[in-house]
């Protein structure tokens, strides 16, 4: 078992593939947190996105409709969080946890209402892998980075756009300022409330789409609890990536890599129980997070509702 084992193109391809929903959800959460709101309901939003995306795609037969519906469904959850956290100044953690439970429960309910109990679960076609002409023939990166399904490419594009948006546009600067010091932003005429709502809606949409990618990319079907902690992992990836888009991409790839590798290891090494292998990516992430959390700087206004007339 040499170094080729660890850098096998198939493992790397798997890494990009597995990480795709995580990256997208983390980008959504990053945008929300940058505006000063901590959304802990990602898991619920993804579950809702998964079921709505699957059902709409199944009924209409078009995955695109599914994705749009998933985005809207999660954005509605975001709107609820926004109304509570921004307008009513409610505690964000409490509302977020409530929405997490709501989203998770609602997703099971929706599935049962539309599909009911069936012996064979309904299936949809998953996104096929797309080989980019020319680029997929490149040495070193061609064989893994350019042979993944279409959403994976799009998501990497989203990361780049998010980076450009946050650090190279005027609105991006205003979003960052809002998340750091809303009072300062407000006194400079920046519409803090509107910006926060907008970030929450757009971030929610990304998270919803990330949820819909689970049945559309990975399984082809919906099953209860299929989000399986990916929402929480995305929340952690934002911290791990230190609130920087490409940082979270790297974090997600790291997670995806360990995840892909453990399947490989499980096949190669028969003596270790598979449950242990399944645990590895999570343990790895915890270890990395402990290391990365030191000195990480969250947006300073995170969790703090803004009230212009509040007296300090």
């Amino acid at each position: 078992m040499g170094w080729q084992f660890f850098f096998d193109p198939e493992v790397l391809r798997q890494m990009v593939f597995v990480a795709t929903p995580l990256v997208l959800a983390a980008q959504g959460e990053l945008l929300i947190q940058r505006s000063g709101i901590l959304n802990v309901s990602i898991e619920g939003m993804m579950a809702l996105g998964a079921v709505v995306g699957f059902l709409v795609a199944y009924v209409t037969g078009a995955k695109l409709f599914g994705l749009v519906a998933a985005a809207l469904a999660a954005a509605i959850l975001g709107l609820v969080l926004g109304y509570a956290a921004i307008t009513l100044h409610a505690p964000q953690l409490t509302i977020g946890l409530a929405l997490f439970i709501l989203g998770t429960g609602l997703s099971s309910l929706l599935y049962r209402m539309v599909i009911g109990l069936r012996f064979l679960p309904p299936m949809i076609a998953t996104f096929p892998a797309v080989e980019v002409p020319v680029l997929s023939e490149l040495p070193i990166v061609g064989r893994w980075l350019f042979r993944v399904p279409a959403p994976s490419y799009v998501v990497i594009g989203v990361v780049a756009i998010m980076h450009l948006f946050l650090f190279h546009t005027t609105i991006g600067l205003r979003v960052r300022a809002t998340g750091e010091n809303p009072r300062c932003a407000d006194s400079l005429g920046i519409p803090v409330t509107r910006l926060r709502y907008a970030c929450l809606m757009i971030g929610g949409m990304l998270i919803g789409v990330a949820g819909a990618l689970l049945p559309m990319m990975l399984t082809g079907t919906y099953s209860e609890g299929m989000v399986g902690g990916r929402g929480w992992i995305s929340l952690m990836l934002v911290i791990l990536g230190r609130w920087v888009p490409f940082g979270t991409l790297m974090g997600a790839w790291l997670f995806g890599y360990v995840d892909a590798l453990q399947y490989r290891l499980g096949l190669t090494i028969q003596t270790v129980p598979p449950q242990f292998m399944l645990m590895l990516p999570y343990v790895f992430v915890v270890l990395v997070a402990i290391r990365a959390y030191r000195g990480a700087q969250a947006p300073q206004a995170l969790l703090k509702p803004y009230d212009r007339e509040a007296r300090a």
Partner: protein
Amino acid sequence: MFPDPARDYQCPDQLRCELKFGGGSPITKQPLVRLVNVWKRFGSIQALAGASLDVYPGEIHVVLGENGAGKTSLMCVLAGLYRPDQGEVLVNGQQFAVRTPADALKLGVTMVHQHFELVDNLSVWENVVLGAEGGRFALTRRRCHQAVRQLASEHGVEVDIDARVRDLPVGLQQKVEILKMLYRRARILILDEPTTFLTPQEVDTLLVTLQRLAASGLAILLVTHKLRDALRVGDRLTVMRGGRVVASLPAAGGTEELLVQWMMGEPPAAATKLLETARPAPPAPDAPVLLEVEETSTVGTHNRLRLQGISFRLRAGEIVGVAGVAGSGQRELAELLVGLLPVAAGRIRLSGVDITKLPIRDRLDRGLVLVPEDRVRDGILPGMTLAETVVLGLHRHLFPNVWYDFARAMQLGRNAIEQHAVRAPHPLIPSTYLSGGNIQKLILARAVETCRIRAEPVVVALNPSRGLDVRAVQHVHQQLRSVVGRGGAVLLVSEDLDELIGLCHHIVVLHRGQTVAEFDGPGYDRYSIGEAMLGSAA
């Protein structure tokens, strides 16, 4: 419930028109903005009760008043941060709706808050251009850079515009704030207590800058409670008290006595007495040393400054002040003494006993008393009763067994209300219901009671008078003096140099976590202390 606003309003329009300003020339200018009869209420506090104010271009208008007089509230109304319950803003005689800060910005009204409103984690240039970046969508770094650099050099501000704001010293942060406002083409610049955290040298520079800006046509509103600054640069003075404007006059017409009377609302004798900060008699030369810190240092962390070579001693009957620019290690010093920060090297002795390695509890038992900086967060039990807050810290002494003696606690609570002038109906009222001044009185009552039961108490007080009105400050100083009067010692950490100069026998200066100089009173030289605070003294 509230008195008629017209009654206390001593400066009606006719009178004001007869007043002169700007070295004797009659008023010919139109006011840029007029605030008329503004009312604002926060819960049970009437912050503004019919205040009015005219702002003229090209002059420095000082708004004077004690803490809680409504100065800041009035400015926040002008800046669009507070929406008044009643009253209007007039521009060119026409009503102008200032509902949001954006509306105020349209008028050219900008405000530099006391604690600044900067985004600490952004760079200087990002802070300056924020909200007025120019360009449609893209943030053009090069153009912003150039604009900010040009503005900075125009106004003689030397600052690395790529530096993060949080890494800048307070004085420079203030300059960045002012630059930010100038970048927005401010026509009215409000500065809320801008001199509080500055050294005397920095105050001089600031005031000169303001005069220059006023000469260029800006209207400057300088909010302060310091008469000295007001009389030095003000072209016009407005005095506020209890949410009202009690006087508005050209600076030439104001004498210190008159202003003090107006600010305090007391007859002359009582007013000057309130302003006094008499230093207690110096201790006997053979008074025992109660607290001795020798070449002590700590390990710094990412949010705790590293202390190095801290040395000073505190005799019985002595008040020693610790001066320093904000963030020079004052908080760390207090935490070091109480035992929250471990000592890396050096020695701390309390009444001759080495306490360097003793835990907090043992230090407190030996007579160390802390008056914390953030009185609500660190000083009281907000949800619990006044009586319970008073016994906190004394509980081990009062209740040596496991039982909580309710009657004893009540007795102490009543004592606090009666003897220490805490204004509360009864000892069972929740501590949060008290006002800031009363909370501080309560904490000092506790400290004084603790000092009574210890043989040689040492009180470490961090900015004990911050944000209090003049009577509460007077009470704080009186309590500190009573501690030293009874053979204790006080280490007074304050960002207000005037307070230290008025009250302390010695002043130790902290700079970047080091004790860099020590001055003996009375007869301090403000400027040499200021130099030491800035780190430029030998």
